[in-house]
């Protein structure tokens, strides 16, 4: 058990620093045994694993639920990629999974649209909002700010269970008679409002809306909790400018969520009204299936405004936590302070502010007044400035570093790479004039998958690899991690880089097949390439899943601070316990990025180590 390597650990709460050789694991374990004996009789299986109010357990619940939803979402994308590469071919896997919706194994067009819709919904909301932000906000906010738990553990539990109900309803909607919602993840009415327009707009859409209502409630409760916790429960010495950038990102994300999610709820409620109670908020002058409908005076464009008032900030709700995780992982593994801490905080705030006033760039050609289009172009392109600052700061952080290529670090660097590649094409799409001909083509699909899909997924993976030891007390296998990263990185570019060309050929998205008329016959072979890379990427995720599950049971036991990190979560014992620290909560004396500080004995100085005599606290 005893390790040969020399490490430093802290006995927390006593503020005594010790050098421990060959004993630390034993020490940590004995510590935990005490703790277990102390608490076991109070906790039942249900309070520990199911209705837990402990933020660490809730974070694991979010992660595992998010991963399960991720498996569903990614599997769906592979199914429709098969259809796109080999249109209207018969596949056994369609026969098995889609049943009556794939007669003779050929996918039905309505099911294609349903798969695209639910893939988008699941990936954006269930995986990258709840799975990413839910997991790491829960895990890291209390641990990194030095709090015993969230401000309200009970609300925290409720927010997870609302998310669980929402996931269950969304999955249940896959099994209704007429199929799940199929109007695209943006569910624009009238398509989503009228069951006559497509079968998915019947019971499937009702369930989608109900599920999202639960989801929004969950995310609001969670966000309020995060905000209150960060503002009120910081330990002594943890000023706002000593917060790790992860916590900054989670805080600002939560604020954006509180500002924008209620607007989506209003859109959903009004749509429910239109669908079920005969109102005309979004509908007017409609003739469908041989019948003039009674709706008069509503406007689908109003729905688009309400939807994108959340929809665009949602991009940053997904992305900011990933960027926060990247900041932490890159700095730790480069053994260097994050470059430009205040600029990073400033750019997070700038991005958050701008993100709420750019929603119109999804609507340049909806018939919105062209003058508004000009305003939104202006605000949209401004976002490139704080984004560029972040990208350059990451690059400068690794410059002259001593980079430790742990799997989390690979994903964090991968994130910066896809964030740049995907972000740059945003400069094209955010330009109202250029959007005219690229809107809703595959160029858009390539753009947002790289900049928010892949980047945020990389953030999720970086976070899982980095904080796995903190969550489960064991290490994930690094070689499997390397395989996972490189196959994923190559196939992600393999999927989405050629896709820009498909978009520039003028091919609209959400087409069931691209070869029904001859004009796009020449992009068929690109679609095959894209699908092959997608299948490869899917296979790589199996490596991750295997690693994730098996390491939980058979992974090597972790030491207390495996990455030699500065933040407070690594000063708390790993095993499940309420209150995080057995004794007093550690106090904070410095910012979290004192890596390789001249004059320090090691290349890291944790936040709870007091300044030495004459040592200056830089940056503050």
């Amino acid at each position, binding site marked *: 058990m005893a390790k040969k*390597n020399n490490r430093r650990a802290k006995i927390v709460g006593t503020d005594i620093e010790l050098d421990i050789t060959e004993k630390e694991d034993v020490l940590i374990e004995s510590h935990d045994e005490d703790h277990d004996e102390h608490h076991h009789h109070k906790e039942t299986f249900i309070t520990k694993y199911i209705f837990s109010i402990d933020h660490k357990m809730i974070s694991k619940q979010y992660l595992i639920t998010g991963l399960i939803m991720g498996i569903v979402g990614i599997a769906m994308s592979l199914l429709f990629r098969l259809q796109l590469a080999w249109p209207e071919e018969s596949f056994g896997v369609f026969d098995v999974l889609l049943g009556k919706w794939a007669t003779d194994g050929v996918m039905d*067009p309505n099911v294609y*649209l349903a798969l695209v819709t639910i893939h988008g919904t699941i990936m954006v909301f269930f995986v990258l909002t709840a799975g990413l932000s839910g997991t790491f906000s829960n895990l890291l906010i209390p641990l990194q700010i030095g709090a015993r738990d969230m401000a309200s553990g009970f609300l925290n539990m409720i927010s997870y269970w609302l998310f669980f109900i929402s996931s269950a309803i969304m999955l249940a909607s896959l099994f209704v008679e007429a199929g799940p919602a199929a109007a695209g993840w943006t569910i*624009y009415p*009238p*398509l989503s409002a009228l069951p006559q327009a*497509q079968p998915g707009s019947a019971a499937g859409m009702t369930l989608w809306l109900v599920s999202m209502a639960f989801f929004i409630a969950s995310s609001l409760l969670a966000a309020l909790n995060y905000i209150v916790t960060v503002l009120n429960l910081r330990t002594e010495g943890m000023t706002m400018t000593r917060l790790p950038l992860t916590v900054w990102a989670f805080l600002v994300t939560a604020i954006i969520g509180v500002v924008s999610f209620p607007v989506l709820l209003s859109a959903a409620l009004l749509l429910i009204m239109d669908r079920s109670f005969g109102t005309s908020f979004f*509908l*007017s*002058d409609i*003739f469908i299936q041989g019948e*003039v409908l009674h709706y008069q005076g509503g406007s689908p464009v109003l729905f688009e405004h309400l939807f994108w008032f959340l929809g665009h900030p949602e991009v940053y709700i997904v992305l900011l936590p990933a960027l926060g995780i990247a900041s932490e992982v890159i700095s730790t593994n*480069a053994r*260097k302070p994050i470059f430009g801490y205040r600029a990073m905080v400033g750019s997070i705030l700038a991005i958050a502010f701008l993100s709420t006033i750019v929603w119109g760039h999804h609507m340049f*050609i909806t*018939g919105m007044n062209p003058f508004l*289009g*000009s305003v939104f*172009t202006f605000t949209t392109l401004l976002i490139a400035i704080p984004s560029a*600052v972040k990208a*350059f700061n*990451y*690059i*400068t952080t*690794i410059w*002259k570093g*001593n*980079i*430790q290529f742990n799997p989390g*670090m690979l994903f964090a*660097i991968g994130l910066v*790479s896809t964030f740049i590649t995907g972000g*740059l*094409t945003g400069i094209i799409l955010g*330009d*109202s*004039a*250029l959007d*005219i*001909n690229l*809107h809703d083509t595959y160029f858009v699909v390539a753009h947002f998958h790289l900049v928010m899909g892949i980047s945020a997924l990389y953030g999720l993976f970086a976070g899982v690899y980095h904080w796995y030891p903190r969550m489960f007390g064991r*290490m994930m296998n*690094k*070689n499997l991690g390397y*395989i996972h990263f490189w*196959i994923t990185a190559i196939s992600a570019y393999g999927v989405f880089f050629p896709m820009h*060309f498909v978009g*520039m050929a*003028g091919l*609209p998205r*959400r*087409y069931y097949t691209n070869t029904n*008329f*001859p004009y796009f016959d020449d992009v*068929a072979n690109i679609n095959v*390439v894209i699908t*092959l890379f997608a299948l490869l990427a899917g296979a790589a995720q199996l490596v991750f899943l295997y690693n994730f599950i098996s390491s939980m049971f058979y992974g090597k036991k972790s*030491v207390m601070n495996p990455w030699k990190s500065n933040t407070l979560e690594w000063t708390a014992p790993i095993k499940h316990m309420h209150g995080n620290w057995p004794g007093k909560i550690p106090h904070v004396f410095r910012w979290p990025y004192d*890596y390789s500080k001249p004059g320090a004995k090691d290349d890291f100085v944790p936040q709870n180590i007091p300044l030495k005599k004459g040592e200056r606290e*830089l940056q503050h």
Partner: protein
Amino acid sequence: MTLLLVLTSLILISIAVWQLTKILELSKPVDFENSEIATDNDNDMQGKFMFLFLIFIYALTIFSFFQYGDVILPESASVHGENYDRLLWFSFSIIFVVQTITQALLHYFAFKYRGNKKRKALFFADSNFLEGVWTIIPTVALAGLILYGLFTWVDIMTIEENDEALVVELYAQQFNWKARYAGEDGVLGDANVRFLQDFDGKNLVGIDPTDRNGDDDVVVQELHLPVGREVVFRIRSQDVLHSAFMPHFRAQMNAVPGMINQFAFIPNTTTQDMRLRPEIVKKVRKINKIRFDKSEVLTANGDFPLDPYQFDFLLLCNKICGASHYNMQMKIIVDTEEDFNKWIDEQLTFKEFVQ
């Protein structure tokens, strides 16, 4: 062929990664490091992979441009489209340069500063100068792009109606397009979905029968446009959202039920001239080769072969609208003024049609 190449390279890449990690594992002295934390060996190997990955990104970019560059839309066939294309390629060249440089810095630094026990990282936490540089440079570049973009946008979206302009209504429904010409009076008759069932359904776009302006309107299923004359589109939908997307003219506007949207452009190339353009000839030849290969398979199975393809402009639906969204299109034919006039004279007016 491409398929085979890609497959082989994919397999080779996977094997390479697998083998490399295996070598890595085997090359480690027994019990040298029994944790899962990156060792100097790992850092060295992964840092080198980072450099290879940079080469991969560049190679993929070059490969894509060479291999897939020819699927990109041909030069614009409308007047404003030329400005559009100029702005597009100007923006592309800027982001291309930024992409090349930043990816190089990111991956090269990752390679160069791969860690080991002896290295010590530089404690470099802030520099107002550097922060200033990469705030100001993007700001200046974006100010230029924003201004250029907005001038182009205002130019495209400002519709100055004159008597010369041809007014055409594009009418969307699940799952087809119709076009309505204003006729000799140059004014489209009022229309609403309430009138769709009049005349036993022959009132295809719901023209108000009491509005005399509608009498000479012409409703067709194939869009003809005269070259060199401004066309003002009024875009309607009768059921769900659609989007009138005319990629060759760099034109798109949504069709929204309850609303009439507008877009205008001047076509500057006839369908005939377009078919003679070298890049179109090449594209058509390529597509026909694909169709010929497919036809061989089809005839071998006893099916009919595919028709040979001839280039035509298209109006596509570009907003998800239901099951047959993928096939909601209309042919656009750009004619000379005379041919256009001849064609429109042959069409039945609304009054003639419903009688």
